């Protein structure tokens, strides 16, 4: 089981199990939102339990997904595709150690020009 929370603790949750190990997203939406790279770990809806969700806010970032963040501290916490069986939970919100391992970089065609990707995780131009 993993535990996670926003920076101020207004939103906190447990994850019973993950669907897959995390991805690092380099799309411009994730870069603007996170400030650099957003890392998401897929979790089935039934495996995500909130222990606190006061001031959790949702922003519709496209016609097919919403993003959840803490309205108090601004922490970016969730990416929720419409109709999917899972939600992507921000890997940065998990308490460590997570025991997770980054499995891929996605949307690297849209990455920023100010850094290089140098680790050995596979890179995908899109998803």
């Amino acid at each position: 089981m993993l535990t996670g929370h926003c920076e101020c603790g207004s939103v906190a949750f447990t994850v019973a199990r993950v669907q897959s190990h995390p991805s690092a997203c380099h799309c411009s939406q994730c870069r603007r939102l996170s400030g650099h790279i957003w890392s998401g770990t897929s979790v089935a809806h039934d495996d995500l339990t909130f222990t606190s969700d006061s001031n959790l806010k949702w922003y519709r970032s496209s016609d097919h997904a919403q993003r959840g963040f803490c309205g108090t501290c601004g922490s970016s916490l969730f990416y929720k595709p419409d109709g999917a069986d899972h939600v992507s939970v921000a890997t940065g919100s998990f308490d460590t150690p997570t025991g997770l391992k980054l499995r891929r970089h996605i949307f690297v065609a849209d990455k920023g020009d100010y850094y290089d990707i140098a680790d050995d995780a596979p890179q995908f131009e899109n998803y």
Partner: protein
Amino acid sequence: MHSGSCLCGAVSYQTDATPQGASFCHCGQCRAQSGGVWSSAHVPVDMLTITGPVKWFAASDIAKRGFCPDCGSFLFWKAHDEDMISFSLGSLPNPTGIALEKHIFTADKGDYYTIADGLPQKP
């Protein structure tokens, strides 16, 4: 000139100063707030113009963090006793003309990724 904005566009900024100290930050506060890793560069605070309803949150007693209250984008970091302000590099459009120089707070990095780009690491 550099100008950037949050994801929804409600908060934007611009500066004519040359950004300094481009860094990746791996501290737990930045990882929680960004969802992954935060990167930023700093300019004199009186040379950064912010437009829109930025919301400030003090994650510690030494600094405050600025984000968009509408979409949650994490944009700014400002130490109370410094005359510089950091803005996120992810909020800039390409090409930025900026190159990251270092990783900071690497002792606090997440266990789920590696740092492999050869840049200096400050624990």
